[in-house]
């Protein structure tokens, strides 16, 4: 065979290989692209999207090949709350059908990438746990500071488990490391409890960042609940803040930072009061105002309304109501209106609130000067 003929054959073979490769890539693109379109359609579901179309798209997503699953998980980035459920319903069925075809390594890589959507990563992690529990557990070691709360929590739990076999000093260090990462209130409480038992007493209210120093107004009438919608003097000139020189300074000593208005003002039903706090924020920008109260509450930041909930004695859980607000760098004001109703049951006596300001994951942001440092 001469050189020209050899070159022709080689060129033909190369071209054939490229063609085959190109076809494979095209096929793969089609394979992945179509499921991705289904996933994005599901993710963007709203109340106006026909439910039958969504159910059909979820059926198609449930039938996708393994290679299309990871790209489809990225659709969670734009998912509406309802869309996330549609997307999950299709992908969970796909994962269940695919079983071992869904490679743990690909799942692990997706979970480990903090730039991928949190819900997709949480879902991928649950599949990884089913397929390769040891790999999933090991993966957690790198997720202590994760933006996905559920993964961060699992990572904190794994870290805490590692403390069990350590001597006290090392275990204490591990718990302090876990505390820095923990964002869930129950986890924080548990860690603080352990540290207290081991001689390291921390203030839970400080750790969770509750705003504890307030000035509290006298009581205003809230008979029949009418006061909730009334604009009493402390709020009538907002965004100009009320003059609080005659208000009572109150510093919470409660373990969870609650301001007890029964104790601060008067134990009375059918009344409301205002409380004003000044907080320091490290930088300007949005943050979450998180309030818990068994009473009806309204909140303003720097004189602007943030949230309002006319609900009485349903719960007083920490972070019961959460709303975003804009803060400026330095001193900001937070005004709370807390309304008590006229229910007579013993469990309806509480007239209180607890408030903190955090980032989106629950890390406290606001600080207050210590009393002796107050201006």
């Amino acid at each position: 065979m001469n050189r020209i003929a050899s070159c022709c054959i080689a060129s033909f073979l190369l071209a054939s290989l490229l063609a085959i490769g190109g076809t494979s890539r095209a096929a793969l693109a089609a394979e992945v692209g179509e499921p991705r379109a289904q996933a994005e359609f599901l993710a963007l579901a709203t109340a106006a999207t026909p439910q039958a179309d969504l159910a059909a798209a979820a059926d198609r997503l449930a039938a996708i090949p393994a290679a299309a699953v990871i790209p489809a998980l990225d659709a969670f980035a734009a998912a509406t709350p309802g869309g996330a459920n549609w997307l999950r319903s299709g992908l969970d069925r796909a994962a269940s059908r695919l079983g071992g075809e869904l490679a743990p390594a690909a799942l692990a890589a997706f979970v480990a990438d903090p730039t991928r959507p949190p819900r997709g990563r949480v879902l991928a992690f649950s599949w990884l746990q089913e397929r390769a529990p040891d790999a999933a557990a090991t993966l957690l070691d790198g997720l202590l500071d994760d933006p996905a709360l559920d993964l961060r929590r699992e990572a904190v739990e794994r870290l805490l488990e590692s403390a069990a076999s350590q001597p006290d000093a090392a275990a204490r260090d591990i718990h302090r490391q876990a505390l820095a990462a923990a964002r869930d209130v129950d986890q924080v409480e548990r860690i603080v409890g352990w540290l207290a038992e081991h001689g390291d007493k921390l203030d839970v209210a400080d750790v969770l960042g509750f705003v504890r120093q307030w000035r509290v107004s006298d009581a205003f009438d809230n008979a029949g609940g009418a006061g909730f919608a009334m604009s009493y003097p402390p709020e009538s000139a907002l965004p100009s803040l009320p003059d609080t020189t005659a208000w009572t300074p109150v510093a919470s000593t409660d373990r969870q930072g609650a301001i007890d208005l029964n104790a601060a003002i008067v134990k009375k039903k059918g009344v409301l009061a205002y409380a004003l706090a000044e907080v320091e924020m490290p930088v300007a920008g949005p943050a979450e105002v998180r309030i818990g109260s068994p009473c009806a509450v309204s909140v303003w930041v720097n004189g602007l309304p943030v949230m309002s909930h006319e609900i009485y004695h349903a719960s007083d859980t920490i972070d019961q109501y959460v709303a975003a607000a804009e803060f400026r760098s330095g001193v900001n004001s937070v005004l709370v209106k807390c309304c008590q109703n006229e229910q007579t049951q013993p469990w309806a006596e509480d007239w209180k609130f607890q408030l903190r300001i955090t980032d989106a994951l629950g890390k406290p942001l606001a600080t207050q000067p210590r009393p002796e440092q107050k201006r």
Partner: protein
Amino acid sequence: MSRRQQTWSTTGIMTLMAVAGAAAAARADWLEFLGPRGSGVVPDAIRRTWSPTEGIAWKAELPGKGASSPIVVGDLVVVTASSGPRQDRLHIIAHDAATGERRWERIFWATGRTFCHPTSAVAAGTPASDGTRIVALFSSCDLFALDLDGRLLWQRNLAIEHPRAGNDVGMGTSPRIIDGTVVVQIDCQGDAFATGIDVATGADRWIVPRDKIASWSSPLPQPLPDGGAGVLLQNPNGLELRSVADGRLVWSWKGDCSGIPTTAAGDGRLYAPVDGIVAVKQSSVDPAWKQPKLSCGMASPVAFGDGLACINRAGVLVMADAADGGLRGQIRLAGSFWASPIVAGDVVVATGKEGKTFLVSTGADPAIVAENELPGTFTATPAVAGGSLYLRSESELWKIAAP
């Protein structure tokens, strides 16, 4: 496929589903909260004695917490649960009724609030089925409809549609499927409403505002005076009967009803929990009698044949004649009761929170005929199908074998 063919095909499928649904409804299933038409009564005789090691057909671990009852749809036992640090993972699980094996599980994320009193759960409402579909409502006001293979047919995120709907004590109401309409009652201090939703499509048929007051009772199927399908809604201000077809108010009855137990019906009367029981004639909506000693705690009353039974807050089962409220007897059961009593054959089945299930005879002289205990915390009302009793604890589902 042409448009006409498509239409015929859709119609055919819907007809088949309707026929299948009717057939399923004819089976001895337990399709909703308190079983057949919400009565809490079945003729099945159940096993008298059991223990963790005796008389158990199977036991299944559950993936999360719940106070919802299991339902039995053909060969499936369906139950709901919630899990996660924020209880925002909502589970709908189907078990094989014969073996207890998990057939499928679907997990969704809550889109509404998931705060809850420790005694309740985000999965507090019992799912309902028409024999071909399952609908499940969670405290987050998320409503899901699935087919029997666990395929999501539609979902309604009612707390997104009504942003102030919900109750941080936890919502406890169960959905009903009546005449092809899913009836949901969202009673709370915020956006309170009742709605009728097409079970086939998830689309609204009607929606009516409700008093802004919390309640945990469930809609109850009730015939309208003209024989049409109706639904009874209860809150602390009283009762109202509405048409299932369009939500039209047929009558209302003012009374200080309890916000937790659901009114029972039977023998031409409604038995409303109002400082005891007030019996209201269905024909005239007039009170027939009142019995203050028939006090309901958390559990709903159950009306059976000629009798009525309630369990009060002190754990005393009180039984009376349905005709006039005359007392038959009072029996102190041990423990506290969140699960409602039901009647299977000739016994009242009362499951206490601490795991004891009492069987009490329903005759003129009621007495405890058996007392059986399982480990765990039980707040879910039992279910009965084919003579088997299903008990759900916070973490497990038990099938007590038929006798």
